[in-house]
């Protein structure tokens, strides 16, 4: 709880938390807060500018943009959550193995990580979409693949350092198995920084999802994704700019929110910064 107070005492941290709460709240309560069905087409109401009734206006099919944005938030956040979780679990496991295992295994895994990392994200996305077709699943797979090497490497480096730590040698001298050492002695001491890093990656994940949807490689219409909305508004940006704004604004706000929060988290938990009383 002291940590929460510390985060709130930093202006950026407080702002970050506010934005995150706003976006997450909007996503959770999307149904309650939406006045309209996000997929309801109403040709009569096409291209309406923002008003009291349609807070963000309507798009080219007469759908209420505010409702679409709220539901889009659900997509963004669930993709972010799920894929981050999977990336973390797999990344941590691979990192532990690479760091603690024999040298040849480590070299092999590094080769694997570097191979994946050298693929530009867009090409990877294209490749996967060719295999699986454009969908949420493709997005998730892309995000997971893109994130795993980075996380694994961080865990690997930390594990390598800890392998030589005296408390690990002590555990070995007691007869602890490798599994036990990894689980109780190494993992708890390496995941901390990684979790903070992962939270700062959430904007990246959201951006990937939005980007893929923007390119038509992600969720299929009529599912409301921020990237899809952005795409819709892109072509009509001269005459009806509010559509693009409706798509872009939530992306910006969420990115800002998580980034500020992540940066503040990192500063707060950095043991080397001496705190003023």
């Amino acid at each position, binding site marked *: 709880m002291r940590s929460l107070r510390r985060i709130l005492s930093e202006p950026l941290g407080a702002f970050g938390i506010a934005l995150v709460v706003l976006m997450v709240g909007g996503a959770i309560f999307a149904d309650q807060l939406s006045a309209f069905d996000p997929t309801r087409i109403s040709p009569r109401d096409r291209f309406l500018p923002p008003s009291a009734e349609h807070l963000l206006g309507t798009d080219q099919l007469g759908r209420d943009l505010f409702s679409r944005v709220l539901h889009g938030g659900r997509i963004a956040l669930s993709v972010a959550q799920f894929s981050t979780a999977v990336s973390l679990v797999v990344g941590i496991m691979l990192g532990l193995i690479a760091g603690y295992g024999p040298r040849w295994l480590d070299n092999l895994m590094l080769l694997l990580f570097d191979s994946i990392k050298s693929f530009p994200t867009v090409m990877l996305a294209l490749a996967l979409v060719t295999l699986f077709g454009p969908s949420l699943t493709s997005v998730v797979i892309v995000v997971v693949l893109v994130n795993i090497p980075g996380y694994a490497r961080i865990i690997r480096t930390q594990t390598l350092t800890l392998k030589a730590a005296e408390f690990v040698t002590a555990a070995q001298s007691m007869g602890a198995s490798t599994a036990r050492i990894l689980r109780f002695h190494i993992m708890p001491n390496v995941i901390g920084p990684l979790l903070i890093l992962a939270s700062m990656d959430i904007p990246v994940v959201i951006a990937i999802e939005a980007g893929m949807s923007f390119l038509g490689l992600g969720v299929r219409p009529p599912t409301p994704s921020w990237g899809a909305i952005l795409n819709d508004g892109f072509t009509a940006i001269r005459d009806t700019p509010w559509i693009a704004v409706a798509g872009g604004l939530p992306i910006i706000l969420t990115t800002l929110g998580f980034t500020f929060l992540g940066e503040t988290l990192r500063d707060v938990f950095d043991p080397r910064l*001496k705190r*003023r*009383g």
Partner: protein
Amino acid sequence: MTVLVIQDLNVSFSTEDGELLALKDVSFEVPEQRIVGIVGESGCGKSTLINAILGLLADNGRICSGSIGFEEAELTTLSATEMQALRGQRISTVFQDPMGALNPVLSVGRQMRNIQYRSKLTRAEKDAHSVEMLRLVRIPDAEAALKRYPHQFSGGMKQRIAIAMALMMKPALLIADEPTTALDATLEVATIELLRDLQQQIGCSVLFISHHLGVIAELCDDVVVMYAGEVVERGTTRQVFNAPTHPYTARLLECDPARQTERKRELPTIPGEIPDLRQRPAGCIFASRCDQRAEACAAPPPDFALGDGHFVRCVLAEAT
């Protein structure tokens, strides 16, 4: 003439759990050409003291009151630039880890030349001076050594190079912070003898910090005993080691295994812990662990002069 005069120095740190008074009313002197030892265990404030003298306190630390007189200057009033000019030239330091002074990516010769940046000598003259210093600290093959890098030397040699670098500009005061703690016994005594010889040759004063009582007894002329940020006793080495008056000093000497000449089953210890320095007791800081504790100890103890420069901060000393 005294080189260093510390008078009623108080240093505190701001922490999240409150103000921590790390040094309380610390006073002592380092006369010209004398070796003064500071003895203390963990938490006694030795590092804080050195940092305060050198002007290198952390951001959350400050000197609340007191003075640090060095030669003619008052160090607490000097600016950062002025302090920087003093460090390495008039006051230099040797650390426990020689890599605290040695830059791993520069050759030894280059570093020794850099220290001489203020002298008007040519490069060749500076190198000659460096070689002279390395010979003084008994580094074999000194000219070749200039071209080598720190990692190519053993631990003992690195420490000697660090000492050479510290003494190159013939400082008035050399601060040695546990310089031999990380060295093996045979290396330690060799380094102590080296320091003693150098001190005589160069004529500087030395402030020697250590928790190794035997080394202090052998090397130092005067000694200052610190506990939890306070000077509890000070005087010449003979006075303090032969007639320890403060209960902490007496117990500390008892505990040193080197003092036990016969094999004992049960070694003496000082039970308890240093109190939380964020909540210093009103009276004597050692009272909670002192076996001679009396009622009078609940009040702040005075600095009592036992005569001939032997001081003790204990209320019981007055009684005897």
